């Protein structure tokens, strides 16, 4: 849920970090980069290796065999079980997100091949209400896990989320239990699970399926953690180190198997799946 705190910046739209013009400036080092070149480098700054946030479709292009992806459960849509209203009614928030992203919710799931190997694949979409997990995300991830169990194929999830979706209250929290309970069943099979963490993966998603991979890898410089930075600063009354809750911080404390730059994601995941498949 931490992503809400970072407003007043406008919420990132799907191309917010991916500019329309010919030239753009790196968010990290300020380098002026030719957009075509940035595209070729998979939206990684050539000078400082900053990883721009990219769309779920971009991850599919990077990770999956071309044309192999078959989407499942695209028609799942959120309801408003609590009749939730803050500054906006929840159904309006959902309608806006659907209009803006042309998606029904914050995760895309399906079956695809990676280097010829069939996988159950899920990728989260931060542009849809901060990639937050409500009933739809929880159900779609659960079905993706079940497809891996039923077909005994690897599970690959690319996470990108601020956590559980507050507007569905307790039902969002319990999606953590639903997905994790199914991952316990997956762990009883020989189907491997590779969890890929991208910027940001925090709170309820980090404290459930994102942390439960047989192997957990992250892109460099991603924000990863449980509690929000500001909440922690308020609680302990001190400033936190700059690298706090980055991929590198997570790696140093023993909670990541590997940090993998985007251009190496595809080959690394394929090799890992190779090692973990009979």
């Amino acid at each position, binding site marked *: *849920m931490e992503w*809400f705190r970072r407003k007043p910046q406008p919420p990132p739209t799907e191309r917010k970090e991916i500019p329309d013009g010919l030239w753009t400036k790196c968010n990290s080092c300020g380098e002026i980069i030719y957009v075509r070149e940035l595209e070729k480098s998979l939206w990684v700054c050539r000078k400082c290796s900053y990883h721009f946030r990219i769309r779920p479709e971009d991850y599919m292009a990077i990770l999956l065999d071309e044309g192999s992806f078959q989407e499942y*459960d695209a*028609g*799942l*849509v*959120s*309801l408003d*079980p*609590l009749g*939730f209203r*803050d*500054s906006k009614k929840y159904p309006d928030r959902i309608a806006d997100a659907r209009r803006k992203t042309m998606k029904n919710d914050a995760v895309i799931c399906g079956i695809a091949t990676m280097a010829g190997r069939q996988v159950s694949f899920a990728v989260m979409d931060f542009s849809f209400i901060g990639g937050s997990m*409500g*009933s*739809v995300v*929880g*159900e779609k991830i*659960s079905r993706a896990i079940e497809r891996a169990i039923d077909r005994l194929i690897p599970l690959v999830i690319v996470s990108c989320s601020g956590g*559980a*979706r*507050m507007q*569905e*209250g*307790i*039902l*969002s*929290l*319990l*999606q*953590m*239990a*639903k997905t*994790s*309970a*199914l*991952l*316990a069943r997956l*762990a*009883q099979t020989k189907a491997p699970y590779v969890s890929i963490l991208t910027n940001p993966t925090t*709170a*309820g998603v*980090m*404290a459930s*399926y*994102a*942390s*439960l991979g047989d192997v957990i890898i992250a892109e460099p410089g991603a924000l990863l*953690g*449980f*509690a*929000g930075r500001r*909440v*922690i600063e308020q*609680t*302990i009354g001190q400033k936190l180190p700059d690298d*706090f*809750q980055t991929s590198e911080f997570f790696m140093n*404390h023993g*909670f990541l198997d590997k940090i993998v730059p985007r251009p190496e994601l595809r080959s690394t995941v394929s090799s890992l799946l190779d090692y973990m498949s009979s």
Partner: protein
Amino acid sequence: MAAGGYLDFEKPILELEKKIREMKEFASGEEIELSSEIVSLERKLQKLQNEIFSKLSRWQRVQLARHPNRPYTLDYISHIFTDFIELHGDRGYADDKAVVCGFVKLDGQKALVVGQQKGRDTKTKLMRNFGMMHPEGYRKALRLMKTAAHFGVPIFIFIDTPGAYPGLQAEERGQAEAIARNIREMSVLPVPIIITIIGEGASGGALGIGVGDVLLMLENAWYSVISPEGCAAILWRDQAKAPDAAEALKVSAPDLLELKVIDKILPEPTGGAHRNHQLAAQIVKGELLASLAQLKQLSTQELLQRRLDKFRSIGIYDEI
């Protein structure tokens, strides 16, 4: 919270109780016949109590759940169980005192109890870290739950936490990983797990010891994806809007029963569990006995399938 350890909306009740008490003392000392006045005041008190407690707002329930005199895990343990042997530590880093674990007997039946513990005074509040667990607390709980499962001992959980501790070291030691692992492992522990939310059930901090077969909830406890204050700070940009957030999040026991998240609401003594610890514990004990008897009928396979189905079915969405 008003000064003196009572809530603002409890004040008229407490004042009337004081008046009755004074009148009784006066009457016995002076040998004056006041019994009809006393009876009428007691009737008035009953009416007032019913009036206030029959229409509690969600926010008032949150305040009751946080009442400084509310029974905590150790109070329930001492009233419900016998032969308590507390067991400590995660065998890796430390003994987190925000969670209490140990073997107990429930009318002679062996069990493990795990519960978050708050303190009553400044010293014990700090020692218990206000009931906010660190990763080593979740790991301690899991270690002992696995031990219990290994020896076929059922598990009773008491939830009462304002959240998993949000601190630098908690992050360094993997708060998210600890909670995720507990949730996954608890879903397949092959013994009955009976959970009672006795006070506050805040988010992942509660869920980290909150996966089981039966979920009971005291009438004035709350359970939510985020604390009302946290939600208010994020969505309303104002912590003072916590009462509105509590309403919007639907955090009360009746809400959760309607959403089919909990199995049963346990009634509290008149005026809230803090008014009568022993009676509150008796009510909880009755349910623990009944739930355990029911779960003991099931084979391990049935138990685990039922537990999976319970969580698998949670969620409300549409398919177009």
